[in-house]
Each structure stands twice: as C-alpha cells, then as structure tokens.
C-alpha cells in the first residue's frame, strides 16, 4: 500500500483519514516533529485556499479541530527543546470593551500555523496589558481585534498607549474585525488593517519577514 500523504489528506479536510495516517505513522516510529511539520504544511495550504476563496471560515475552523486532535496525539512524544524555530513574535488581543473572539482566534491560529510565536491576550484587553506584553516579549507586531464599533475608540487608545510608552517605532500595529476599514484605520492610527486572517498573516510576514 502506498504511503498515504498526511499533507494532502489534512489539506483536503479528511478528518478520519488524517487521524488514521497520524496513528499509523506514530506506530511505525516516525519522528513526531516530522508529523507536526507535515500538519503545519497542510495548514499552510488551507490558508492559501482560504486566500483564494476556495475555503471559508467553516473550513478554517474545521482544519483547526483536526489539527488540535493531531497535536494531542503527537505532543506527548515530542521531547523538550525540540520545538520548531519561530519566525517572530506577535501580540494579539481583542481590545477593551469587546469580548468577541471568533475572528481573533482565527487570526491567532493562522499566525501560529504560519510559523509565528503568538501571545494571545484574550478578550476585553486593556491598553496597558498590550504595552506590558510588548515590553516583556519584544514582539515586533501587534494585532488589535474588535467586532463592535466601540472598539474603534479602544483601538485608538491602545495605539496611543503604545506611543506613550515609547514603543510606537518598535512595533507595527495591524487591526481587524467586523466594521474595520481604511477610514477606521486612519482614525485609530494603526499601520494597516486586514480584512481577514490571511491578510493578517501577510502583513506580519511583510513586517517581520519569513
């Protein structure tokens, strides 16, 4: 029997088959990191298909569900200190006053599978928390998420807090979410906005490289 291709199977979102391949590869003694790397490559294809409007949000969410199971199967076998090298650090959170997380979670997920180390601050995040995390991690990219219109003001305040802390020239700031457009970007003082998760990945790659 020909060796089944995890990259293709996972990219095609065949849950059962993909999990079977992982199980048999683990049994056969395949390197766990190799399996995770294949999964990551599959998710890169998923991201590309999303950018090409071949896949949509349900497909991203479903790919995440499958990946979660694969990671749970493989992770216990990965030895400490073996984790793959990351492209760079990104701080992400939903701004103060807003508790929406679906969009933010998809951005975090896509940044992660595209090789970034992501610090997810969660929802309803005060400006100071972003500032503290940038200082602590030395991240070069910050992503502010918000679904509600009240997020416009919070995003602006967060950008100003970063400026006040003397970090504005150290970081690039991207924003995204429901009602965000170029007009809102100008209002908030952010560097760019992304209309979906893959645009966020593209922006981060452009700023950090990779």
């Amino acid at each position, binding site marked *: 029997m020909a060796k089944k291709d995890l990259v293709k199977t996972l990219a095609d*979102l065949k*849950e059962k088959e993909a999990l079977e391949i992982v199980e048999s590869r683990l049994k056969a003694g395949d390197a766990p990191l190799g399996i995770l790397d294949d999964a990551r490559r599959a998710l890169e294809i998923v991201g590309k298909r999303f950018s090409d409007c071949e*896949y*949509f*949000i*349900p*497909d991203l*969410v*479903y790919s995440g*569900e499958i990946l979660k199971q694969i990671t749970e199967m493989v992770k216990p076998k990965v030895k400490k200190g073996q984790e793959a090298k990351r492209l760079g650090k990104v701080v992400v959170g939903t701004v103060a*006053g*807003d*508790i*929406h*997380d*679906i969009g933010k979670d998809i951005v975090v997920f896509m940044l992660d599978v595209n090789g970034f180390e992501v610090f997810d601050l969660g929802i*309803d995040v005060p400006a100071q928390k972003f500032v503290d995390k940038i200082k602590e991690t030395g991240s070069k990219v910050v992503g502010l998420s918000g679904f*509600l*219109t*009240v997020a*416009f003001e919070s995003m602006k305040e967060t950008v100003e807090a970063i400026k006040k802390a003397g970090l504005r020239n150290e970081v690039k700031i991207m924003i995204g979410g*429901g*009602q*965000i*457009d170029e*007009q*809102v970007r*100008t*209002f908030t003082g952010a560097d760019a906005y992304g209309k*979906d998760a893959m645009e966020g990945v593209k922006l981060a790659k452009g700023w950090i490289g990779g």
Partner: protein
Amino acid sequence: MEKKWEEMSAKEKREARFKTWLSAEGVKFESPEAEDTYRKAIMRFKDAVLLEKTPDRVPIFPLGTFFQAYLYGVTPHECMYDYGKLLSASKRFLQDYKPDYYGSPAFIGSGKILDILDYKLYRWPGHGVSQNSIYQYVEGEYMKAEEYPALIDDPTDFWMRNYLPRVFGAWEPLTHLTPFPNLWEVVGVSGWMIPFGIPPVQNALKALIEAGTEAMAWIQQIMGFEMEARGMGFPTAIGGAAKAPFDILADTLRGTRAIMVDMYRQPDMLLKAMERITPLYIKQGVGMATFAGNPVVFIPLHKGADGFMSDEQFKKFYWPSLKALILGLADEGCVPFLFCEGSYNTRLEYLKELPKASCFWIFDRTDMANAKKLLGKRLCLGGNVPAGMILTGTAEQVKAYCKNLIDVVGKGGGYIMAFGTSMDDGKADTIHAMIDFTKEYGVYK
C-alpha cells in the same frame, strides 16, 4: 361581506395588515400634522417596499440599539437599569433628529430581568463588561453535539428542559419537571405535581415571578414611550421578529465553532433540525406581527454572510430554510425585513428566487450598485451607510455618500436610507447629515 382571513390571498392579507398599521389604533396624535406625518411615513414605506409606485421621497430608518442614548450621554448601564433615562433620550432623539420611524427601545431590554434570571448567553453592562459597554454574546455550546435527536424529536421540550436550564441559572431546577404530554388523566395529576414541591423548583418559580413582575414594570414604561412616539407622528417600522433557522442553530444553540464543525461531522442532522424548526419561526413572526398590528418582521442575518461559508455550503445549509421562512411569512401577509450585516455580494443571485416585493433587505457592505442592478426591479434595498463613516467621518463625507446612494440605489424608488449596522454609538453631526440631507435631496419629483 368581508372575506374570512383564511380565504384571503397573501396580497389581501398584506393589504389588511397595512390597513391595521395605518389605523393607528389607540394612538392619541398630538396634532393633525402629527397624524398626517405618521400616515405619510407608513405610505412612504409601503411604496418603497412594495415597488408599486414611487414614494414621495426616500424613507429614513436609522436603526440601532444604544446610539440614541449615547448621543445624550446616557450609558448602556443606565439604559438597561433606569428605563426612564433611556426613554427620555429616545424621545429627545425623535424631537431633535426627526427620522421617519422610531426603532423600539424594547430592543435593549432590562438588565434587572437578566440579573434575576442569571442569564449566561450574554454579558451586559456592569455584568461581565463595563457599564459603558453594550451587551455582548458569549460563545458556547448551549446545545451539545449529541443532542440533535432530542431537539428534532420535541423542540419545545428541548428548550424547556435542556436549553433554558443552561442559559438561565435560575431555570436550572426546572429540569426536574415532568414532560407536559405525560399528563393525561386524573390518576396522573397528583404525581405530575410532585416536582413543583421540590424546594429548588419552587425557588425557580419564585425567580420567574420576580422576573415577570419586573417585565410588567418595564413594558409599561416602554409602551408609554411607544404610544407617545406614535402620537408625535413616528410609526415604528418593526412589528415582529424571527431568525434564520441556521442562525438559531449557530448563535442560539450550538455556537459558531460547533456549527461549523457540524456542517462536516453531522450535516444530515443539522439539515433535519433546521427543517424541524422553520415552521416555529414562521409562527413566531406571524404571531408577533399580528399582535403588534404591523406587518414588518425583522430578521437579523448572521452566519451566512460572504466569507462565513462557501457558496456550496450556503446553498445547502443556509439558504433553503431562510427562503422557506421568508416565503412562509410573506404567505401570511407579513413583510420580512432582512437585516444583513457584513456583505452579501456572493449571495445576491439567490435573492432572485424571491417573488417580487415579498420582503426587503437592509445591507451593510454589499455592493449596492450591483445589488440594484440584479434585484432592483424585484426587491426594495436599503442601508449601506457605513458605521465607520458615521463614527469617524465628517458630515460632508456622509452627505456625499448618501447622495450617491440616492442617485444609484434610490433611482425610481425601492430604497430605504439606513445605517449598514445596528448602531451601538453615534455622532451628532454625521447622523444629522444623513437624515437632513435625505429629506432634502431624497424627494422624488
């Protein structure tokens, strides 16, 4: 002799519903001018929506939640706990801005009732979010993946004993109640009552009485405002509400992540569940519209927008039950009002399947020129004034934007001026610009 309701055609029913709306039963108009303004606003709406003749001008319906209060410095927390403050701001908004219709402050609801019930589906001002934040949905699986058969078997029992105990802390003990159809003869009555003797069940019932008492206090104040607003010459343009069956599953029951996985893991169950609940929401919309004496049924659309699913998924999972809901409501003489946030560019072709004037659509980020081209002869289209521009732009910018909307989408009628989203906050100069400019420039000659 007048025809019996059940003998009427859909068109006759719709006409009868408009007649009831126009009759303004129980409204005390503050002047003959107010009465005239009221009726003209309804006729303007009717002409725009039914596409039978060109209205006198473009109707203006700025719909929102907390924005009227925001304009007068009333916080979301005050709106939900001090109804008087909300209502006086709502009244001042009508006096100062004079839109054609009012959006009901009932949309906001009472925070006190949510407190009593210990509501889990949302956070609200002062309860999980700050007093200046609006209420927000909490993602979660309020129905489990394996519960589709129970929902399909008996939706009412599912709501009563599975769903409500999860979304209301106070309702939790009511899982002990015996199913209602189990009661059939005298021998069963005494035993059937036993759960009502359990102390936690009795406490739950006490909480419901308390919530009900507050609901009466709340609705009295709301209705006071509503009758006053009508007396001032402003009709409401919403009679009832319903939801797309997919969104009931996706927002109310399963949550966004779970529903997306269900499309892959149990598509047949999902389809069966939507088919099962669709008639319930036709019934809800019709019932509310009849009670309110207003044909318009508000349907906020969520998870079928561009990007939220593929064309294939929309065609399979979202559209059939939404279409059945729209047709079912229209068949009873109602006017479904599809409130379509996000964009619907890839869905417009489906809307061609809807009969002429069977409903109207308020769009957010949809390409309006294209929508007019594809659907203008068939359906009334409205909205598209961006929230971002209203909140961060200038009056001049808004006027230019509205001018283009009136020129392109308003051409020949069939357009309603509205925000693209339900506004949570606002800005005086831009909202004035939208309303005042449309009153002047939107007149059909």
